[in-house]
């Protein structure tokens, strides 16, 4: 048995498992010891077992242009990313605060517009956002909830501080991997859980269903469905998984039809009314009559039914405005404005190129900054200043000057690292964290942990699955705040057996 311990050297970043002196962080030493006592062969064998399990379960994502059914197993690393109870407590509070403020902002911006009258955010910044939906003016979703499901991206810088990198308020995906990763860990490395209280994540589907039911129109026994663009969508596995876990129908746009102003689905026994749609289709494709006329994925007339309160859409159309990366820069101000509190989780410092002196500053410091388009996801269209060539910077500068509203810039963060199995050895790799948050009439719930994405290439900070990222199970360790469930009452009746003739 070789000791991998000494070979693992966290490099210049905050490491999730080790302190600067190379000793395991408090609470994780048992996991660190067990991981490092495994031989390279053993690590590789367990890693292979986990991957085989993911393949058998068919836990895949679609890759466009990939042969053989367009499916790929998302790389999974068996070393868990561990968060202490104290750290999690703060994240939980910070996310609840942030979602509460964002929800108030959305309600305000599509209705009273107090925040604009009070000049907390410039009006033209809002009106110029491509994700602003004028047709949502005056909309009041049931129970006042806009962001039913949120996936907020957090990163950790050198000193270990968690920052909010972006808010995903439209159709955030990844929660199915949180649940499946845990399942795979339990089956392939059960001994790693010994002596630890890892907070369970498996009540998420139930809570999601409760959330959706809590915003249903006032009918007895409402029907919930999940709306997917179809099997070729990259997150199809998740859509199917959530529908199955909640025990509701997974529908495509063509399964739905509007009759007498209400939404119905086509069943083997005729049309059946639908009351809540957890939609995993972007606003643009929801209703060809309202948004993109060429959309084949949506349901003509859906928005009209929604506006009349005859069906609830989750998340609410129009949320994209709060996802805009220039609007993001104002979220700390929203928290102060609506809640009169200081933000618990800080933003990454952000330069909004369309504002004041920022444009000049950004252009002068392109080689130090990360420049992002305001409305892209998946890590596309980004300039990584310190790693860019002079030509790239020049062409980016031209693009920024042409349309400053479309860009923001942030200092280059050095994401935290976590031990990851690379060729049978543990090496540090950069990670981020996407917790999932549910807002219902009963309040805000944060799923303990979330999705840890890891950049598998050495030194890379790009964790997106479409660009060579993988994922890890995320453990939140329990303390007294989480009570442990116990079962009792065993059967006392013995099993019947065949009677043996004497």
């Amino acid at each position, binding site marked *: 048995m070789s000791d991998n311990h000494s070979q693992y050297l966290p490099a210049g970043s905050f490491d999730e498992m080790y302190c600067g002196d190379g000793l395991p962080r408090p609470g994780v030493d048992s996991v660190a010891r067990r991981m490092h006592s495994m031989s390279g062969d053993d690590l590789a064998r367990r890693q292979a077992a986990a991957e085989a399990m993911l393949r058998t379960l068919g836990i895949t994502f679609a890759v466009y242009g990939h042969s053989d059914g367009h499916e790929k197993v998302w790389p999974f690393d068996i070393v868990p990313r561990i968060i202490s109870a104290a750290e999690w407590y703060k994240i939980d509070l910070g996310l609840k605060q942030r979602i509460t403020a964002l929800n108030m902002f959305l309600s305000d911006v599509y209705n009273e517009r107090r925040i604009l009258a009070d000049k907390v955010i410039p009006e033209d910044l809002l009106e110029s956002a491509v994700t602003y939906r004028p047709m949502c003016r005056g909309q009041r979703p049931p129970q006042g909830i806009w962001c039913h499901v949120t996936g907020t991206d957090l990163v950790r810088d050198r000193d270990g501080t968690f920052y909010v990198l972006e808010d995903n308020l439209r159709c955030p995906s990844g929660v199915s991997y949180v649940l499946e990763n845990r399942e795979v860990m339990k089956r392939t490395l059960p001994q790693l859980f010994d002596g630890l209280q890892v907070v369970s994540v498996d009540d998420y589907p139930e809570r999601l269903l409760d959330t959706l039911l809590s915003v249903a129109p006032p009918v007895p026994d409402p029907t919930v469905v*999940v709306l997917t663009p179809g099997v070729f969508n990259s997150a199809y596995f998740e859509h199917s998984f959530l529908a199955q876990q909640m025990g509701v129908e997974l529908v495509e746009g063509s399964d739905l039809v509007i009759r007498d102003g209400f939404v119905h689905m086509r069943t*083997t026994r*005729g049309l059946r009314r639908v009351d809540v749609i957890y939609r995993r289709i972007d606003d643009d494709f929801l209703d060809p009559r309202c948004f993109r006329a060429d959309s084949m994925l949506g349901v003509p007339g859906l928005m009209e039914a929604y506006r009349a309160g005859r069906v609830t859409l989750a998340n609410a159309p129009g949320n994209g405005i709060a996802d805009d990366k220039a609007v993001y820069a104002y979220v700390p101000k929203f928290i102060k404005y609506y809640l009169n509190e200081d933000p618990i989780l800080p933003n990454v410092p952000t330069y909004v190129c369309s504002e004041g002196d920022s444009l000049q500053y950004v252009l002068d410091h392109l080689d130090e900054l990360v420049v992002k388009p305001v409305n892209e996801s998946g890590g596309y269209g980004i300039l990584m200043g310190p790693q860019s060539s002079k030509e790239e910077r020049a062409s980016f500068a031209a693009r920024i000057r042409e349309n400053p509203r479309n860009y923001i810039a942030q200092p280059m963060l050095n994401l935290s690292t976590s031990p990851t199995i690379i060729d049978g050895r543990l090496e540090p790799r950069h990670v981020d964290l996407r917790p999932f948050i549910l807002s219902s009439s009963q309040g805000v719930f944060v799923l303990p942990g979330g999705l840890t994405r890891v950049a598998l290439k050495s030194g890379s900070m790009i964790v997106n699955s479409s660009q060579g990222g993988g994922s890890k199970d995320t453990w939140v360790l329990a303390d007294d705040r989480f009570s442990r469930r116990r079962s009792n009452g065993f059967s006392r009746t013995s099993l019947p057996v065949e009677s043996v003739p004497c």
Partner: protein
Amino acid sequence: MLSRVAESVYWLSRYIERAENVARCIDVHLSLTLDLGQEWADQWAPLVYTTGGHELFEKLYGAPTRENVLKFLTFDIDNPNSIMSCVMKARQSARTVRESLSLAVWEELNRFYLQMRERKALGDPEQAVYNEVKRASQLLIGVGDTTQSHTEVWHFSRLGRLLERADQTSRILDVKYFLLLPTLTDVGTSLDITQWSALLRSASALGMYRQEHHRIVPVRVVEFLVLDRDFPRSMRFCVSRAENSLHRITGTAADVFSTRAEQELGRVRADLEFTSADEIIRDGMHEFIDDFQTRLNRVGAAISDSFFAAQDDLPAAQSQSQ
């Protein structure tokens, strides 16, 4: 349940059943070639006829050699009815309705697909592959029966499987019967018994047949595969159990019908119940089977019209009660 889901579930179990039957035919034929002489060892064309793909085969391969036929029927994805094509289509259907299946069913089906893919990557099919296909299909049926609630999804799956099986049994019978005819002079010889036994074995029916009829008699073999009341691969058994599922789906009593599908299927079942093997042989086995297959296709079309087609003309239903 959603019409789209019903359709996918119905087809997914048809494809699995089809894959199993192709494997059965090949498996039996392979062992038959060991029992019989060179003359028989070259008889590969009938296998292609059984699956109804002879025109495509001639276009793609030409000569029906052992190698060509096995390749065409096992792994060739240009043949829509090859084992590989069926398993791929079944899995693709399953992916689109995964939320309606039990996890165990999905896992077995996915395993089946991955196993076939690995087999295919190894090159030419070995005989062991056909046993694997049969086992995987049987396993899938068993896992479905014990992990899936016997509600609409399960009944659509059973309906698809049984209609496919009825059709496949009739095909096996048709081709083998045609092949065996010229050898009527061999009646009672060991060659004859070997061939009729092979026919029974391709439906896993030999043991059960012997319990019922003891000796191999051609007319009894026909009776067993077409009309037996209790053998689960006989055409009559399949049709009658398929009808049962159809009625469970519609909720209509067994002796009335509310859809054209029930009407058509009820007629097929009644005809099988009130005919005899002697009559079938006297009036022409091939004509009988041809007619049976045409009528099954009509049943399939009626099921599609009644349950799967877009129902835009339907009124908005009593929404809460369902």
